[in-house]
């Protein structure tokens, strides 16, 4: 056991060392032909001995005996498994901040402002077959911040990683994490002790109703101004822009998707009812561990659930979690996905999906859907990614074994048709990276102070 862990750590370190190389990896010709793979399309069944042609970043053709266009890279995938790139709908990857926990309503903050495109964990997720994620604000407060949906194009600028056309989303949080913020409050010497409202689930509902009521009023002000301008009134000063309320107005208008962290059935029901009252839809309940208790109600509202496969009892509100949650929700017609919420678990979501076959008896396609097409639906990008279909983005992962097997490793991960992870290349470059490291370690700036060559400081002296 210990040995395995050490090996895993060594592999992780190696992956880290290679991260810097990804930019070079992620260049490729226009066309790639993957030949003779077992293709797990997820939406259209499993196709044996099938070729997939990638052109201009899209899946151009799926079929047998496809001729390689001139200049195309041909990959022999005999004995290998091709599946859509994994979608992780809930992570905190590559973010330089997670929570703005100072206030109960911080809808003005944006994860997009703090993305770190150089985070090595991006590369590690790619090594686990993940191609698209939503990076969510944390769950410290009732209304968190604006999330970011990105494609893991490691090596690109943050702006270029944003998923084009993905609907904007907003994070909400219910339950313990919000109320326990007060317990977690760090007392800073010399500062007044501030207990942030609310400290109960009742209070959370009130914060939500208050915020959406304010947003409705704000919308009325904006609409009135626009109407007066339309009527031709001159010299009007536009109303003050309110960055806190703007995203809430977008939620009310259905232009921004509500992603709601919730564990317990009662708090999730409250949120669904509240959304009905204000006339918007909850797009997804995040984690939703007690979702199985209210599966029909969730289905009726039309919310998705992003669940864990088998995590429970790590806090009071997680005591009623069961590994059958995702399967029960799916049987009730709820679009259900798995999420990692973790840079570590994000690398092995395929194994979490496999657990749903063991607990709950999902079929292979259903299990795979929880980490691919269902995630795409939750993110609102199901027309572009999530399955292997002609015309979709060529976000793919190629495995050396069936991805629902514990023996499966990713060979290659493609985003928009380009290779962003290549196991063989990674292995091949380890020596070279080790040499580069050794060279760098020799440099003076990398010596510990005790080893450093003595530099004679030039000190001013008194004249003699």
């Amino acid at each position, binding site marked *: 056991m210990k040995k395995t862990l050490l090996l895993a750590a060594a592999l992780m370190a190696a992956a*880290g*060392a290679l*991260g810097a190389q990804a930019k070079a990896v992620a260049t490729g010709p226009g066309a790639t032909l993957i030949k003779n793979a077992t293709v797990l399309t997820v939406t259209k069944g499993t196709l044996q001995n099938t070729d997939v042609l990638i052109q201009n970043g899209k899946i151009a053709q799926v079929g047998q005996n496809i001729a390689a266009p001139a200049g195309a890279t041909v990959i022999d995938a005999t004995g290998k498994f091709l599946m859509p790139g994994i979608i992780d709908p809930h992570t*905190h*990857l590559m973010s*330089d*901040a*997670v*929570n*703005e*926990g*100072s*206030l109960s309503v*911080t809808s003005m*903050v*944006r*994860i997009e*402002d*703090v993305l770190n495109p150089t985070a090595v964990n991006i590369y590690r997720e790619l090594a686990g077959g993940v191609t698209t994620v939503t990076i969510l*604000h*944390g*769950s410290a407060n009732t209304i968190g911040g604006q999330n970011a949906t990105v494609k893991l194009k490691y090596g690109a600028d*943050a702006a270029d990683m944003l998923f084009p056309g993905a609907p904007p989303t907003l994070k909400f949080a219910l339950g*313990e994490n919000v109320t326990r913020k007060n317990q*977690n*409050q*760090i007392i*800073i*010497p*010399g500062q007044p002790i501030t207990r942030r409202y609310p400290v109960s689930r009742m209070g959370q509902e009130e914060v939500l109703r208050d915020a959406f009521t304010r947003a409705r009023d704000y919308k009325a002000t904006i609409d009135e101004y626009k109407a007066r301008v339309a009527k031709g009134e001159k*010299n009007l*000063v*536009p109303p*003050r*822009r309110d*960055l806190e309320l703007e995203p809430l107005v977008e939620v009310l208008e259905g232009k921004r998707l509500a992603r709601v962290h919730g564990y317990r059935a009662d708090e999730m029901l409250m949120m669904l009812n509240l959304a009905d009252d204000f006339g918007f839809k909850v797009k997804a309940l995040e984690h939703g561990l007690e979702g199985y208790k209210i599966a029909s109600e969730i289905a009726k509202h039309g919310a998705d659930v992003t669940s864990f496969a088998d*995590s429970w009892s*790590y*806090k009071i509100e997680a005591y009623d979690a069961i590994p059958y949650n995702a399967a029960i929700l799916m049987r009730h017609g709820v679009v259900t996905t798995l999420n990692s*919420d973790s*840079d*570590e*678990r994000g690398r092995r979501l395929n194994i979490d999906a496999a657990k749903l076959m063991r607990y709950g008896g999902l079929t292979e396609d259903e299990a795979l859907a929880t980490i691919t097409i269902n995630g795409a639906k939750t993110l609102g990008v199901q027309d572009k990614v999530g399955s292997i279909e002609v015309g979709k983005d060529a976000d793919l992962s190629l495995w050396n074994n069936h991805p629902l097997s514990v023996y499966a490793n990713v060979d290659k991960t493609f985003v928009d048709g380009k290779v962003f992870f290549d196991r063989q290349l990674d292995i091949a470059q380890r020596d070279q990276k080790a040499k580069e490291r050794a060279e*760098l*370690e020799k*440099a003076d*700036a*990398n*010596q*510990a102070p*005790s*080893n450093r060559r003595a*530099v004679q*400081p*030039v*000190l*001013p*002296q*008194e*004249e003699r």
Partner: protein
Amino acid sequence: MVASLRRGLAVTAVSALAIAPLAAQLASPRSIPATYAITNVRLVPVSSPSIEKGTIVVRDGLISALGANITIPGDARVIDGSGLTVYPGLIDAYGSLGVPNAPAQGAGGGGRGGGGGGGGPSATPARSAPNSNYPAGLQPEMSVVELLKADDDAFSGPTSAGITTALSGSGSGIFQGQSAVINLAGADANALVVKAGVAQNIGFSPLRNGGFPSSLMGVFAALRQQLLDAQHYRDVKTAYDRNPRGMKRPEFDPSLEALQPVLARTQPVILYASTQREIERALDLAKEFSLRPIIAGGGEAYLVAARLKAENVPVLLTLNFPRRTAAPSADADPDPIRVLKERVEAPRGAGRLAQAGVKFAFQSGGLSTWTDFTGNVQRAVENGLSSDAALKALTMQSAEILGVGDRLGSLEAGKIANLTITRGDLLDRGRVTQLFIDGKPVAVRAQAASATGGAATATGTWTVTVTMDGTDLATTLSLRQEGTRLLGSLQGSLGSVEIQNGTIGTDGELRFTATVTLKQGTDEATFIGTLDGNAVRGRIAMVGHAPGTFSGTRPQRAGGPPNGSATGSATGSATGNAPGAAAGTVPRTPPGAR
């Protein structure tokens, strides 16, 4: 041997006094003469070719003449400068020189001021504009000139490095207020000021008092909202001024008022940003509001050189080059190649900026020793920067970027007489012997020149035990302190991550956040603690977890033998007598107790 400058002063003092003009006598109660002529000296005007042997005359605080054949005025004290070189006074283009580090005595009630013991009150100075609608840290109306103190001791470090002039800002907060160009000698605080309101300094560190914004993304939201509010304020006021009758008077807001020159681009903003992504974010913000940006810090500016050049953004480039500060811990993951590379590349940054045509000036960047100031300029020169460009980035170019090129930055008649005098070439291990500031001689003191002035320093590798949810987790905390900024990484059981938003007070109170990975997932943890010598301890807040604690030690400092190096790493000593385990015996405070 050549007569020393100082001795020269003493010899001619009496004669000069006799004919000094009345005005100068009034202005100089201690009867310091107002006119000097330094002869037989090498002159490096920067704005024009060097003069191998010439004279420079300083009168009433200004350079009155310089050249190879200058008539020495009769009232001048003559100084034989044989063997010496005169440069324009060096400029430290960013920092907080002249702003006392200690909490402001008069500010706020501060009822706990007299508290005893080591762990006394550690609130950051309550520098708040009295009538602001915004909290401290978001008050652009603050001006550093209100905070300055003429403190010769505080200036002795930088002056020993040849610095006569600095851009000084308050150094704390997000909207840090208006910075000023100051001289590092003067009778009182106001006499230091060369130009006030030079720029609006902006930092991206969250507020430390628990209020909004407490995170980096909150900082951006706060900046954005306040700039939008300033635009709205402008529009409402314009409408009101056009026709006040029948319109409610817009309420005066000093903070939004102070942002008007920023929005109008008459006042630049100095944005503190070091890494590539920090610089890109700062430039994006400036673009969004059409501000006039200057980047300060700029450690990785060379990676953004093309954009900086295209958008014509100058850089105040740090001379605090990163380097390994402690022997790597046997338990820690090795430094990523990116970090190793960054240390090697840092001295090459200036040369690359110059090559790309980006305008830049040097700044000390919180160096721990002032002798590194010109020392690191020399390293930049060894790594691809021309000497001429280096000298400009210490003088003329700095003055131009800071909007004082008409009065400082070169040796020209009529400019302020700030002179840096060396024996030998400044950029080839020359030694600063004497300064003139505002035409007055300033002695250079020999000293160890510690830039942080004896404040607690967190730099080093710490072996830390983190206790979360009743479990002890070993981790290595590598820290690098730059002024009050704390950079570094966590490596070990919590994952390998860079720390964020790190700050440290002069009293050793430190605070940072890190995105850590525990059993349940990845989330952000806030560390608040106190550093005391080679020990650190504090508390951790993490959403979804009971409060945790951390404590640790810095085993390898001052050349001591690394702990555990004799036993090697394979013996599993981490669970034995490793420093982390010893630190675990610190009594844990029950979470509910506060």
